[in-house]
Structure formats: structure tokens, C-alpha cells
């Protein structure tokens, strides 16, 4: 193990800085977009209390694409929920744009493994739902729902390969298509932050790889800050700029390393030695974190 097994507040490497240069950051590099400071989460009370997240500090900069990997039940989703302000930390603080979470209104997009499209709405209306809810689109929704917003939803749908499916209903689509529409719904209101909780987990491998590429294109176009929770190490290494490996419950960040393969990345690349080596290294970290029941190929490179 050559890597320091420590929770690190990452310093953006050159590669990331270069990729961000296209978009002027609203927050300086000195101040991360999202910062966890000694955050921990406990569920329940008394004897039944479960520590879901051990004291964790983490900094995520604007435009980062961070993947969280780790054994199941390690608190990856807990971390995501903290950022989405769906959960309050038991101790510590979560800062967004330098202020306590909730104080700075940012737009968040979220997608789960379960597409949760509303069955009574067409795909287009499903995609437009955030525009109906989120300020400042909310007040314009009535006026623009048949014009600008509709075009925006259709453009996004076309981008993910669903052109012409706007008038269909969710049950008329396959799982992969529903997940594409789900991504559109998470992006339509141009979020500052995208939270993805195993969005491609339920798809077959080919559909999944197709969606990785779509996700990569979407990210490269907008450079939205993304936090991705996944079980799939290839997915993490393909999509992210930075991978955080978490330990088994109570979760903490064991390893935090940049991924600097050049973009756009191709599926073929995932079979090249460098990529495979990274995967093996991540895998051995997670196997060790699970308690090392698997066959550990120590020092994968």
C-alpha cells in the first residue's frame, strides 16, 4: 500500500484546474464549493444507535466529479444525503459555498437508481417537473411551459438519445430509457450540484456503458459539480476526476485519489493497463475495508 490511508481534503490537481478553466469559478480554489468539517452521523437512540458515518472531513471544489465507492452500507448514500440537505449531521458542519448548508441557496439535481418518473405524466412533463418547482423558473412556468421550457426539455432529451420520446409515458420506455429521462430531470434546471446515487446500477452492462458516455458528454458540456455514489469501480474510474474510497460502517474516507485519464474517455480505455491497475488498486482497498474475506492481490501494481 503506497497510498496514505487518510481522509484528505484534496488539493485540486493540475488536470482538474485545466478542465475548469473553461468556466469561471464562482468560488475561489481556496474555498471549496462543498466542505465537510468533522461531520459524523448516528441513527437511532441508546443501544440501537448505529454510527453510519465516522468523523469525516472532505472538500469538493466546483466542477469536481467525485465518485464515492466502498462496501455496501458504508455510508456513501448518507454522505450524499448530507450534501442534499436531506439529513442533518449529528456532529460537525457541512458548508456550501462557504456558508452553512441551507444558508446559500444552490440548485441541486438528484437521480437515484430507481428512476421514479411520475407515471401520469409524459416523459417531457416529467423532465420539466423541476422547472415547476425551482426558483426562478417556478414563476415563469405557466408562461413558458409550452415554449422555452418545452424546447429545453426536448433538447436535453435529444442529447441523451430520447428525441421524439417526449410524448410517451414512462411505462412505454425501457429501463435504460427511463434512466436517461431521469438524468434529464436532474439536469433540466441547470443545477450547481448533481447528486447521483447509483443511477446506472440496475441496467445491463451495455446500456450502462452507453449512459456513462452520455453522462460524460453532459458533464463535459456543463462542468457541473457531481457527487456520484456507485458500487461499480469501472464506472467510478471512467466518470470521475476523483475517487473517494470509504470504509465499512461506520464509514470514513480511506483513500482519496485523482483520476487523470484524458477526456473524452472511451469504453475501450477501460481495458487498458493503467485503467485496470487503478481498478485493481481500488478493489484491494475495498476488499480490505470489508474485512478482507476476498482474495487480496496485495499491491496491485
Amino acid at each position, binding site marked *: 500500500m503506497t497510498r496514505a490511508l487518510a481522509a484528505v481534503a484534496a488539493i485540486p490537481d493540475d488536470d482538474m484546474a485545466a478542465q475548469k478553466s473553461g468556466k469561471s469559478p464562482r468560488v475561489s480554489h481556496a474555498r471549496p464549493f462543498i466542505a465537510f468539517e468533522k461531520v459524523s452521523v448516528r441513527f437511532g437512540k441508546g443501544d440501537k444507535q448505529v454510527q453510519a458515518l465516522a468523523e469525516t472531513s472532505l472538500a469538493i471544489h466546483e466542477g469536481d466529479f467525485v465518485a464515492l465507492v466502498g462496501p455496501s452500507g458504508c455510508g456513501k448514500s448518507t454522505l450524499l444525503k448530507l450534501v*442534499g440537505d436531506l439529513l442533518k449531521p449529528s456532529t460537525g458542519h457541512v458548508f456550501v459555498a462557504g456558508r452553512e448548508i441551507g444558508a446559500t441557496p444552490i440548485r441541486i439535481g438528484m437521480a437515484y437508481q430507481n428512476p421514479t418518473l*411520475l407515471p*401520469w405524466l409524459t416523459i417531457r412533463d416529467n423532465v420539466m417537473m423541476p422547472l415547476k418547482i425551482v426558483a426562478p423558473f417556478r414563476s415563469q412556468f405557466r408562461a413558458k411551459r409550452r415554449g422555452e421550457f418545452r424546447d429545453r426539455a426536448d433538447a436535453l432529451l435529444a442529447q441523451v438519445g430520447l428525441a421524439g420520446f417526449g410524448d410517451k409515458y414512462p411505462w412505454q420506455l425501457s429501463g435504460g430509457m427511463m434512466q436517461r429521462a431521469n438524468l434529464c430531470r*436532474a439536469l433540466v434546471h441547470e443545477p450547481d450540484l448533481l447528486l447521483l446515487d447509483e443511477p446506472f446500477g440496475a441496467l445491463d452492462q451495455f446500456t450502462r456503458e452507453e449512459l456513462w458516455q452520455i453522462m460524460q458528454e453532459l458533464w463535459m458540456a456543463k462542468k457541473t459539480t457531481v457527487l456520484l455514489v456507485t458500487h461499480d469501480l469501472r464506472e467510478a474510474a471512467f466518470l470521475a476526476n476523483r475517487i473517494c474510497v470509504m470504509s465499512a460502517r461506520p464509514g470514513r474516507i480511506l483513500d482519496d485519489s485523482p483520476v487523470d485519464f484524458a477526456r473524452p474517455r472511451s469504453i475501450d480505455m477501460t481495458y487498458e493497463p493503467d485503467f485496470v491497475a487503478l481498478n485493481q488498486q481500488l478493489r484491494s482497498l475495498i476488499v480490505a475495508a470489508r474485512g478482507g474475506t476476498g482474495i487480496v492481490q496485495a499491491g496491485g501494481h
Partner: protein
Amino acid sequence: MDGILDLVRRKSASIALIIGVFVVWELACLVGGISDIVLPRPSQIIASLIEYWPAIQPHAAQTLFTTLVGFAIGVVIGILFGVGIGSSRLAYDTAYPLLVGISSIPKVAVVPIFVLWFGAGTVPAILTAAIISIFPIVVNVATGIATVEPELEDVMKTLKASKWDILWNVSLPRSMPYFFASLKVAVTLAFVGSVVAETVASNRGIGNMMMVASSTFNVPLVFAGLFILAGLGVGLYALFSIAESRVTGWAHRKDLAVT
């Protein structure tokens, strides 16, 4: 074409069954020599329906009126309670035992109380119809609202959706199939409520007409009253079925999936 043929086949089977029941009933009475004071034949019942129609008609109108007004009150209260109970875990846990308790009381037992408060007549019939139809609506609406997927709620919350936003855009539309299923049950129950109240304490309505007819041993007329009730019940059930398939077609996608 196959779909239409299939529909005809299904419908004709149920129509044949209904006619068959009446034929067997008619024949059994004839062969067994059953007196029409015990069990009149369907043909006698229909004859008395036609004979007494001018007298029956205002009673039928009265029963339909009390039932529908009571049902409407029940729907409004049912939705309000259902939304309230379904939206909050605390309200659900707190109010549910009370609701089950109230719903376990036989509704016949509350009619005398309504009569005591409001006097005999239309009001107790309306209130009984209302109270009997509330429960299924509350339970179904609350279930529909309480079972919104947590992931979907998270998505809405990260969009900073208010409770009202979530209710209006997600929970309420989602509970519509449950709501309409409960309407079909509730409207037939509302008939039970109004007729029971009319039987006990009213001088109008089908329930009262049947009481009077049985006291004069006009058994075919009693049965004619039952036929009227069955007809009204089926009619309203069908009405809400049509409304249901219009509003909540998305929940029955198997029927729609045929291109």
C-alpha cells in the same frame, strides 16, 4: 378487432349469468310452487315495478338524493382526513386507531342518535350515508399519499419543494387510483347507509317504501324496491368506473398497452 371480440365475449358472459339467475329463480318458484308472499317471481316483481312506478319514482328520487348528498359530504371529509393522515406519520399513528374504532361501530346503531338530534327524515339519511362512506375514502387516500416512494420525495426535497408542492404534484395524483377504487366501494356503502336510515326513521325513500309494503304483505313491491336499489347502485358504480378509467388510465397500463 380481437380486443372488441374479447370485450363482447366477457360482457356477454356476465349478461348471460344475470339472465340465467333470473331464469332459474323464475323456474324454481314455478316448479316448487313457492307463494309470492314468500318469494315472488322476477316476472311478478317487474310487473309490480311497472304498476307502482308513479308511486315508486319519488321514493327512488329521494333515496338517490340523500345518498348522493351524503356521499358528497363523505368524499369531501374523506379526502381532507385522508390527506391529513397520509401526510404525516404522527397523524397516521395517532388517528388510525380512532378511525378503526369508529368504523367498527355498526352504522345502524348511530341512526337513532341522528334522529334524536335532527328528527326523522332526510337529514339522518344523509348523515348516515356520509359517515358510512368516509372510512374507505380516508384509508385509501391516506395509503396513496403515505406510500410515495422515498427516493421521489428526496428528489423533490432537493428541489426545495414545499409540502404543498409535493402534495399537489406528486402525492395527490398518485393517490387517485386508490381514491377512485374507494369511491366505488363508498358509493355502494352510501346506499346502505341511506336506506337503513330511511327504514328506521323516515316517511320517504325506498327504505321507507319497502317497510310500508312489507307491512301490507305486498312482497313483490318489497322486491321491486330491492331491484331499484340494485339498479341505482350498479348505475353509480358504473359511473365512477368510467370516471376512474378516464382519470387514472395511467395506473391500468396493461389495458392501454395494446396498440
